[in-house]
C-alpha cells in the first residue's frame, strides 16, 4: 500500500508546484532582506539608545525569517492541499471503490496515505530549510545568530548563538517544524474523509486553516488562542534560545501532537464508518 501511495505522489504535480512556489518565495525574501538590511542599518538609526547594527543581518538570520514565514503560512497550505485531495480525490475518481474490492482494510488505506503524506511533509520541510540555509550561506554569508525581541516574536530577550551551535539548532528545528506541519495535514485528512470532492476538501481545509490563523492573531480571542493549533505552530522558535526551555518546548510539541492525533482519529472514525456509494 505504501509503495503504491509513493508512486501516486511521485506522479502528482502538486509536490513540484509546492517546490516552485517555495523557490519564488525565497527569491523574494532574499530581495526583501537585502533592501531591509541596507536601509535599516545603513546609518539610518534614529535613536541614541539602540541596539541596531549591521552585523546581525546574516545568512542565519535570513534562514530564520524565511523559514518562519514559510512554516507559518506556505507549508501548511501546501500540506492542507495535499491532505485534502487524498481520500476525497480517490473517492471522486472511483479509485477508492476499486481499491476496497481487494482485501484491504479502510484503516490500512487511510494510515498508508497519511504516512506517505507525512513523509512528504517532513522532506518538504527539511528541503526548504536546507535550501534556505544554503542560499543564506552563498548569498548573504553565515555568522553568529543574533536575535532580538520584536514583532515576529522570535525571542523574548536578546539571544546570541555561535554559528556552529545555531546550525545544530537548525537540525533540531527540522523535526520540530515537521511535527507542526502534521496538524494541518491531519486536519485536511479529516475534511477529506468527510467530503467527496477533492476541490471542496482542499479548499475548505486551506480556508479553515487561514481562518484559525487569523483568529489566533486577533486580540479579541486572547482566551481562545491557547487552544488553537495555529497559535503553537511557531513553537520551534524556542530552540533558538541560548538556554532552551525544554519543558515549555515539549509542552508545545505535545499540544500539536494532541491536535494531529485527534484529527487523525476523527478522520479514521469518519472514514471507517462511511458508506462508499
Amino acid at each position, binding site marked *: 500500500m505504501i509503495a503504491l501511495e509513493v508512486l501516486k505522489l511521485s506522479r502528482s504535480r502538486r509536490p513540484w508546484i509546492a517546490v516552485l512556489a517555495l523557490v519564488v518565495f525565497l527569491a523574494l525574501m532574499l530581495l526583501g532582506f537585502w533592501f531591509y538590511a541596507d536601509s*535599516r542599518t545603513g546609518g539610518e*538609526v*534614529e*535613536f*541614541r*539608545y*539602540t*541596539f*541596531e547594527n549591521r552585523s546581525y543581518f546574516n545568512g542565519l538570520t535570513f534562514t530564520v525569517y524565511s523559514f518562519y514565514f514559510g512554516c*507559518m503560512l506556505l507549508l501548511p497550505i501546501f500540506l492542507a492541499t495535499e491532505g485534502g485531495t487524498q481520500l476525497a480525490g480517490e473517492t471522486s475518481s472511483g479509485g477508492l471503490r476499486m481499491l476496497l474490492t481487494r482485501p484491504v*482494510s*479502510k*484503516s490500512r488505506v487511510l*494510515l498508508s496515505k497519511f504516512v506517505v503524506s507525512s513523509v512528504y511533509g517532513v522532506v518538504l520541510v527539511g528541503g526548504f530549510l536546507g535550501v534556505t540555509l544554503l542560499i543564506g550561506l552563498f548569498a548573504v554569508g553565515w555568522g553568529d545568530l543574533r536575535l*532580538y*525581541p*520584536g*514583532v*515576529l*516574536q522570535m525571542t*523574548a*530577550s*536578546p539571544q546570541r548563538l555561535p554559528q556552529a551551535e545555531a546550525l545544530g539548532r537548525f537540525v533540531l528545528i527540522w523535526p520540530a517544524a515537521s511535527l507542526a506541519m502534521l496538524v494541518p495535514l491531519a486536519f485536511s485528512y479529516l475534511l477529506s474523509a468527510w467530503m467527496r470532492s477533492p476541490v471542496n476538501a482542499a479548499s475548505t481545509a486551506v480556508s479553515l486553516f487561514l481562518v484559525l*490563523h*487569523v483568529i*489566533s*492573531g486577533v*486580540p479579541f480571542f*486572547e482566551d481562545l*488562542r*491557547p*487552544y488553537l493549533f495555529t*497559535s503553537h505552530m*511557531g513553537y520551534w522558535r524556542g530552540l533558538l534560545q541560548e538556554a532552551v526551555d525544554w519543558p515549555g518546548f*515539549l*509542552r*508545545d*510539541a*505535545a*499540544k*500539536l*501532537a*494532541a*491536535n494531529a*492525533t*485527534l484529527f*487523525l*482519529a476523527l478522520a*479514521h*472514525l469518519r472514514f*471507517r464508518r462511511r458508506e462508499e456509494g
Partner: protein
Amino acid sequence: MGRGARIELLLFVVAGACGLYGFGLPRFGFPYEPPPKADALRIVTWNVGAARDFGVDVDAGDVAARVIATIADLQPDLCVLQEVSRDFAVRIATELDADRMVSRPARGRGVALLSWSGRLDPEGGDEYVHAVYRKGRRRLRLVGMHAHPWSATERNEEIGRAVTVLEKGRADVRVLAGDLNLDVDIGGGRDLFTEDEHLDVQTYNYVAERLADAAAGTGPTAEPDRRLDYVFVGGAQVRDAGVWKGRRVGAMDHHPVVVDLEWK
C-alpha cells in the same frame, strides 16, 4: 471491538495524553497569594489611570477602593503607580500603612512609589521616581516611570536616561518598573499582523540587553491586548511574575504586573 475501532481508541488515548501533558491544568494561586516574606521581594507596577475620554475620575469611589483592595491583597514590598495624583497616593499609603511614599508629577497626574517592610531613600529625579530600598543586607535601586505615550523618540530618551541613572548608582539589584508604553507585541501572538513597530523595538532591546524583562511571556498588561507595563530586573533571580487581570474597573485600561524576586 474490531481492529479499526482499536486503532481509533489508541489514537484518542494518545491525543488525550498529549493534550493533558501539553495543556495541563489551570494555574491557581499566583499572583493572588502573597509571597513568603522571608526570602522573596514582591514588586508591583500598575497604571491606575483611566482613559480621559470616558470622563471617569480614577480617584473616586469604587475605582479607588478597588486599587487599594488590590494592593492590599498583593502585599507588595514595593509598588510603583502611574497616573496617580499625590492626594490619591497619600490616601493609598495611609490606608495601607505604607512605610514610605515618594511621588513625582509626571504626565499630568504623577508617579508614586510606596514601600513596606524595608527602608526607602529617595534619590531625586524629575520625570520619574528614583529611590534606594534596603531590606536585609541587600540594596535595590529602583526607577519607576511613566514613559511618553505618544512619541517613540521621547520614550527612547526618557527610558535611556532612566537606565543610565540605574547603571550609575551603587546597588545589588536594579529595577526599572512602570508603564513604559513600549508595544512590541512580544508574546502577544499576533504572528500575522507584523506592523512596523521598529522604533519601540529599538528601545525595548536597549533595555533588555542590560536588564531582564521579568514578566516576559505572561501576556498583555493593557487593553486592548497590549503589553505596555514592565518590570526590568538586574542582579536578582525572578521567582515568579505575571499579570493579574480582572482588577481594573471603570475606564481603567491597565492591569497590575506582579514580580516576585528571590531575596536571600
